[in-house]
């Protein structure tokens, strides 16, 4: 177990280095640079202005020098200064990571709980009207563009019905105590978390359903039934525990990609998290911020994979045994 964790951590270093090289190079060879964007915002294309900006951020130096000094700084935990926000990348990320964690966790939990519940139900009664409806909705949920769904929900719940706020994390005019503040945040959270969750929800429910159908027909379930166990015990204690493994795999992998999902949702709902930061940084060619976020994202993917492996071991003894044998 410990060895696995250690090996994964070593992988992270290699991967981060690879991510840095690939992304730094890609950003570098893209036409135009941050200086053009900054000068553009100033409304001046004066070459003197461009030169000043490039000198300020070291963009006038050769690629190898830029990359070398970047790696050197990253090694010491300094991810550089954002061109656009004029602030250290680490502090930008620190300010925003909480919002993304709240949104991402809520969305994934919502998707897992509802997804598995729907999946189990439809597997047990595959011919019921609800099952058919769920299948159709899952298909729609999976294929509908996130930004489209988000805007439809805003129009319906914020504009037409005026039940929920259209965007942001908190009401700017808000005044109240700690608990009221959390209620305020929760109200703002419903629409973006639902939107982000729907995509995953659709996948989880389908995955659970397929996996559950298979498991319910396997020998050990028949054995359990023939032992005279109640249907409830058979389904929830025996079958579900096995059926849920692929869902956990899926969820684990997606935990790492939550940042990319959040990118669009946060932009549409004006949620002040890392996704919105990434979106704005792409537009502004804000290379230090983008590189920082891409690294963070890749580290998340590795950690999520690691966590998934560990959870497997807890749930499925076969993997535990196989793992130590190897």
């Amino acid at each position, binding site marked *: 177990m410990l060895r696995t964790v250690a090996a994964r951590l070593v992988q992270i270093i290699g991967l981060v280095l690879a991510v840095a090289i690939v992304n730094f190079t890609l950003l570098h060879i893209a036409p135009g640079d941050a200086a053009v964007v900054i000068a553009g*915002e100033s409304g001046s294309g004066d070459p003197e202005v461009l030169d000043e900006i490039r000198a300020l951020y070291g963009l006038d130096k050769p690629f190898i020098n830029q990359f070398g000094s970047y790696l050197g700084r990253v090694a010491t935990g300094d991810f550089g200064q954002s061109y656009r926000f004029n602030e250290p990348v680490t502090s930008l990320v620190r300010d925003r990571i909480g919002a993304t964690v709240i949104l991402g966790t809520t969305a994934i939990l919502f998707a897992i709980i509802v997804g598995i519940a729907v999946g189990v139900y439809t597997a047990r009664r595959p011919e019921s009207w609800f099952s058919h409806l769920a299948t159709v909705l899952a298909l729609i949920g999976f294929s509908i563009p996130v930004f489209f769904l988000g805007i439809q929900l805003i129009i319906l719940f*914020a504009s037409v019905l005026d039940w929920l706020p259209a965007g942001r994390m908190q009401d700017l005019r808000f005044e109240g105590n700690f608990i009221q503040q959390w209620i305020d945040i929760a109200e703002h959270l419903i629409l973006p978390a639902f939107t982000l969750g729907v995509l995953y929800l659709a996948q989880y429910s389908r995955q659970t359903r397929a996996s559950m159908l298979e498991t319910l027909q396997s020998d050990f379930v028949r054995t359990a039934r023939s032992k005279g166990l109640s249907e409830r015990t058979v389904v929830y204690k025996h079958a579900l525990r096995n059926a849920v493994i692929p869902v956990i795999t899926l969820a684990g992998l997606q935990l790492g990609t939550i940042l990319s999902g959040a990118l669009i949702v946060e932009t549409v709902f004006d949620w002040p998290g890392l996704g919105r930061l990434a979106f704005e940084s792409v537009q502004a060619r804000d290379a230090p911020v983008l590189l920082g976020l891409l690294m963070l994202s890749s580290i998340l993917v590795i950690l999520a994979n690691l966590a998934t492996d560990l959870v497997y071991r807890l749930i499925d003894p076969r993997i535990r045994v196989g793992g130590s044998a190897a």
Partner: protein
Amino acid sequence: MKSSLMRLLALVACLGLFAVACGGSDADDAVDAATDAVEDAVDDAMDDDEEAMEDDAVDDEEAMEDDGEEQAVDTSLDEEELEEIESDDADAGAVDSGPVAGGTLIIGSTQVPRHFNGTVQSGLATAVPGTQLNASPLLFDENFNPQPYLAESWEVADDGLSVTLNLVEGAVFHDGEAITSEDVKFSIETAQAGHPFKTMFAPVTEVLTPDDQTVIINLSQPHPAILLAMSPGLLPIIPEHIFNDGTPVAEHPRNTEDFVGSGPFRLVEYETGSVIRLEKFEDFFIPERPLLDEIIIQISPDPSTIVLGLEGGDIDLTTTLGSAANIVRVRDNNELILTAEGHEAIGPVNWLEFNLADDVLSDVRVRQAIAYAVDREFLSNVIDQGTTFPVTTGIVPASPYHNPDAEAYAANIDRAKELLAEAGYAEGELTLAVDYIPPGQQATAEYIVQALGDAGINAELNVSADFPSWAGRVAGGEHQMTVNQVWNWGDPVIGVHRTYLSSNRVGAIWTNNTGYENAEVDALFDKAGQSVDRDERIGLYAEAQAIIADEAPIHFLSTSPTWMAMNPRVQNPPVGIWGTMSPMLDVWLAE
């Protein structure tokens, strides 16, 4: 139990979604909003970047009545729309009671400031909060006339070689230190060294401070743009005792932290890229001003979100609506006010420019043919849905220097075909590519491709992935022709000369990217840039515009006004020539 509740919720949500998307009367809006959403964000960032804030230094005494009329004629909106715009002007939301002090104004913006120090940073992003935080020597009225602000009076020497400012007594910075002539001198010198608009203070040779209240600015040549260059957005007065510590001003930490300004509001909080909170400065030098207690600028990357905020009453005012779809959406909403009034000093011009180094386009007949083929009226009225106004030269009609008599190339497809034949091209023989600033100008570029097709030219779009990619192509001269948007900055010295001067072919965007060279035009601009006689300048610019029109290095399309959308409770909205880029001293909120 919980899962069935969730099921129900999901079901309701999805059904509601279909009702809205498929059957509801909002279907079009919904689809528009959706497809525009992500695009808009990019689009807007780009547009406003360019529009960021070019400044004008139009002479004083310019009566603007003519321009007002002209714009009304030029708009070609239908009557209903015109009425609406008129009724939506500054007085529309006026209430009977007098101004009431207090309240919080929430401004929605897509613009992220790098910092708040306008001496070294131009742009809407910095100027909207920056002009609340810092005062400037002068304000400007709706006729581009200077008005007292930190300078209670001023005088331009007869030879135009010096300007004397007399500062108001008793003005203090937010930390209580007095604002003196030394601060003004320091601010001018900082802007001269570090502001992106190099032409603003270029002729300043020295700044003298004979006493605390007097500033004398000496110039190497008469410089008509100098007064407008002392507008709030262009020359904020910053505290020397804070910034003159050896740290380069552009990188100074106090540009955002512990901000000490000279303006009517002080900085309470800046959540980077998200929220700017400003609070009334109690010791501001103008008594009983500002009226508002607080201004909050809420930054959202997506203008559609801002529009929703306006509709829901969470946002009071915005100037960053982004797309035509959003502008039309607000225009059609009876509960909101939309106005094109204000921000006249910015003057953005949309145009189609030709790369004169191209073999085909170096022929003036081909350029003129294209100009005749592309119908600017159709573009403004149909493609832009009345959100832009046609223009015929590179100086906007709102400027006193606009020449209404230059060759306009009114749409004439037959004339276009004739000119192409004269140039020796049979129908279908020519193939040309059109670039544009993505994604905001895509519709314009697509129309141009279509229009050129009608004239017998095989045109195709050249799509750049994003703004920097486009900028790289155009700066490198890789394009044949491109749609572009360039800001006037009011005084041609700042925003117009740069496009035509042969000395400004320097391989960067918004310089002379056509490669245009005409010694006569160079001489006219040079002379106009040093004349303090307004009538003489009008004549010189008129001549230059006429020559440029005849040679057609650029086909001028339209001007995009800064559409301002607001809640009717906003009284005395900022509709001056600098609009929201000026201190909101008189703005108040009705309940």
